[in-house]
């Protein structure tokens, strides 16, 4: 494991493909905790959208409620944003792309937002293949409300207040593959290279692209599989526990050369270990059944499999299915929105 220092804001250098510098891709200063995995993800979004030369005015960034859901304020300042309600961002995003199918929708959610309160909407969004990049910043807990379990918390883990979780975690990727998402990937907030690559791939996908990013909460969560070590480590490293004290941590990054096909252990801030398994380069992500099997197998081995797990490029997206006008609905003028007098006359005659 290697933890490097927080990715520093890059200086605005040469402009990108569409002539913009890095600045429009940045957002406000983060108000998340130092060392929060969510910040690394924001950095990757900034870099990736800049490098791909995406026009930020044609992007909408949407979220629910949570630390993760706050993060759209911290990137793409030139894009419209919508911080909606807890767990129900998928519906809002669906509506937005209906209104304007040309928009590139970027959804950012948390594991609580997606897998607890928002599970139904998450599934139905995937089922519709709504065109969106849907990022789950997955820390296995509710960061913003101070560390309770979410539905992706691993069985047996403990909260700060000592409550243990008896329930099995929901594997968002497994669920996504099964429920019809057409692009499913998983990464780790600290794996710059992989996460960037996945985001870029997601950008070229037409339907729902689910990207589950393991993103440790440095403040509340003794992460995945860390049950045993948590208390020990905490008690030893930090000599006292004080209400509301959030120690300062650096963000975690794994080395850039973490190779496809290999397994890497990452030590989290509390000393617990994360076992990341990166898909081999020749993995075929178009086989739905195999993807499901692979995900389940990793779960059984206590590993977190990362990479692009599944892709289906055939399935039309929701806005395609609806056969919408070439012009975004939001831009169609009154003359086409209101049928002519003759149409009303026609109906009136029928009803008379």
């Amino acid at each position, binding site marked *: 494991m290697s933890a490097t220092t927080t990715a520093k804001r890059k200086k605005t250098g040469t402009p990108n493909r569409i002539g913009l510098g890095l600045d429009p891709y940045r957002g406000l200063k983060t108000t998340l905790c130092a060392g929060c995995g969510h910040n690394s993800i924001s950095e990757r979004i900034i870099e990736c959208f800049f490098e791909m030369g995406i026009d930020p005015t044609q992007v909408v960034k949407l979220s629910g409620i949570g630390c993760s859901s706050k993060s759209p304020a911290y990137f793409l300042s030139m894009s*419209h944003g919508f911080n909606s309600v807890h767990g129900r961002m998928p519906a809002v995003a669906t509506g937005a792309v209906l209104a304007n199918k040309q928009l590139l929708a970027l959804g950012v959610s948390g594991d609580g937002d997606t897998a607890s309160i928002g599970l139904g909407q998450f599934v139905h969004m995937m089922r519709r293949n709504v065109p969106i990049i849907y990022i789950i910043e997955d820390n296995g807990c509710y960061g913003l409300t101070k560390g309770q379990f979410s539905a992706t918390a691993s069985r047996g883990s403990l909260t700060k207040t000592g409550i243990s979780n008896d329930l099995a975690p929901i594997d968002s990727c497994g669920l996504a593959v099964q429920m019809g998402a057409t692009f499913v990937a998983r990464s780790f907030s600290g794996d710059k290279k992989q996460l960037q690559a996945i985001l870029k791939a997601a950008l070229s996908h037409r339907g729902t692209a689910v990207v589950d990013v393991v993103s440790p909460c440095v403040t509340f969560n003794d992460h995945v599989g860390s049950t045993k070590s948590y208390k020990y480590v905490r008690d030893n490293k930090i000599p006292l526990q004080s209400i509301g004290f959030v120690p300062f941590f650096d963000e975690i990054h794994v080395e850039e050369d973490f190779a496809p096909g290999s397994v890497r252990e990452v030590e989290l801030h509390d000393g617990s270990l994360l076992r990341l398994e990166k898909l081999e380069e020749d993995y075929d992500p178009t086989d739905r059944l195999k993807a499901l099997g692979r995900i389940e197998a990793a779960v059984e081995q206590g590993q977190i499999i990362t990479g692009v797990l599944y892709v289906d490029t055939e399935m039309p997206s929701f806005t395609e299915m609806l056969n919408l006008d070439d012009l975004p609905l939001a831009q169609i003028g009154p003359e086409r929105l209101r049928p002519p007098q003759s149409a009303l006359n026609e109906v009136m005659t029928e009803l008379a």
Partner: protein
Amino acid sequence: MHDVNVAPVEEPVSQTLEEVVNDFSVHVATVNGSGSQSSNLILLRALFEMGIPVSGKNLFPSNIAGLPTWYTIRASKYGFTGRKKETDVLVAMNSQTAEEDVESLSPGRAVIYDEPLHLNDLRQDLHFYPVPFDKLVAPVCPAPKLRKLVRNIIYDGVLASLLGIEMEEIRNAILKQFKTKPKAVELNWNAAVAGYDWAQEHLVKKDPFRFERMEGNKGKIIIEGNAAAALGAVFGGVSVITWYPITPSSSLAESAQEYLKRFRIDPETGKATFAVVQAEDELASIGMAIGAGWAGARSMTTTAGPGISLMSEFVGLAHFAEIPVVLIDVQRMGPSTGLPTRTSQGDFLSAATLSHGDTLHPMLIPATPEECFEFTAKAFDVAERIQSPVFVMLDLDLGMNYWTADKFEYPDWEMDRGKVLSEDDIEKLLGNWGRYRDIDGDGITYRTIPGNRHPQAAYFARGTGHDPDANYSEREEDWIRNMARIRKKMLGTRRLLPEPVIDDNPNARFAFVGAGTSNEAIRESRSQLLLEYGIETAYCRVRGWPFSHRTEDFIARHKRVYVVEQNRDAQLRTLLRRQFPVIHDHLRSICYFGGMPLDARTVTEAVVEEERL
């Protein structure tokens, strides 16, 4: 006591044998799922075509097939087409309810019934007409499976014979009903003729009820309120409809979808200028509508009480983040699942201040199909003007029943898309724009639509506290300023809403206030009060909330004002008192909450009791 809760009251018995022409009710009792809706519509349409003002109300169970159902037709040469509480002509096709249906009649009424039911033994003071439906149906309908259905058309023929409905119009109605199915036309027409011929031959007219051609329906149409509202949406320029099935609102979305397919798809490319999405639930349907409204569509959702409750959190978001969206609530009887197929005006209070915290949502309250059409179309203008959720409050009676109406007028007003900034507009403002800055002093601020290409166009919509530039803020001053501005905006809304319809009268002993479908009952009750008691009244029908100052003035002018409404807790009066506390003591209450479409007699009886007439 100022509050009257009205239980059903019996009308005084009338044994008259004088002819009653074009002013009575026909009540058809059948079994749900037996297809009687077609025969009832044919009846309704035939009367309509004879020029008789008429309405038809379906009193149906929450069931697909097997339970009792009734259809009640009100014809009135005076144009009172509210429900008549009294049944004048009963068609008793349902053995489960036949005895009870007969027992409830006043003397002198007519009963057409299925012969094997032997209803004529039940009472001596009615006119009975037994009809051997089974015998009549067999020759005209060879397929046994369909006989249940075809029996119903036979009673159309029988009624035509007994009541003087023109068979020509029955034929026209059948043609209209089954236009694309010649086989069906034939089958039904034969059945109607069989009923007619048999009745002509075997029945001797004894009752006084009779229809006669008149000229009451010039330029009129027949339509359900839901279809009218659907047309309103289509001609109001809706572009996104999201919905989840629920009685009594489903047919609104479904007919909107049909009209949209017809008028809003490019015949050449097949491409649509709209999206209709059946969501997975009401949380999703309102969420999608909000997302669409935010991104610049004219969006709406339609639902009923349980859906309104589920939408509560999201509506608060739209209110606070200031996103236009139209919600149509076709009210049914609550609380909870309640009586899904019974009408009510029980959601006024919940809609008006839906969601936690301080909120206000304007309501438009139509009473007629014309208003369903107009108000729904207008609701989009209001919503986009004030950037807020706007409710259109229908109810089951209005939405699902057939009403006669004037042909709708093509919307002659320009669509109001509200304060939306284009790229150029932003450029001109020289950076002097903030999403929530109150530049005009009316509380309404300027918005940009996602996709606007100006580099300064973007803002961050949120349900959390924000400053005038849409930045997250927890500052006390920001919060107070913003909330005060929103209130100002909302109170200003009343100027955008339909004004009340006021029938003032200097000789009025007292006055009525009502809204929505209470209208028919109030209109007719006023006539009853005048004719039967010689009492003049005034009437103000409110059509929007927050209420107009004209409503306040009206109430101020009248010392005793009866607020007539179809809920238990005087919800409309509560809102009136809330807005006009000073004249609160003018307001009395007549509440009916039995789920039937309100009838005039119920209102009259309540007033008579209160006024000790």
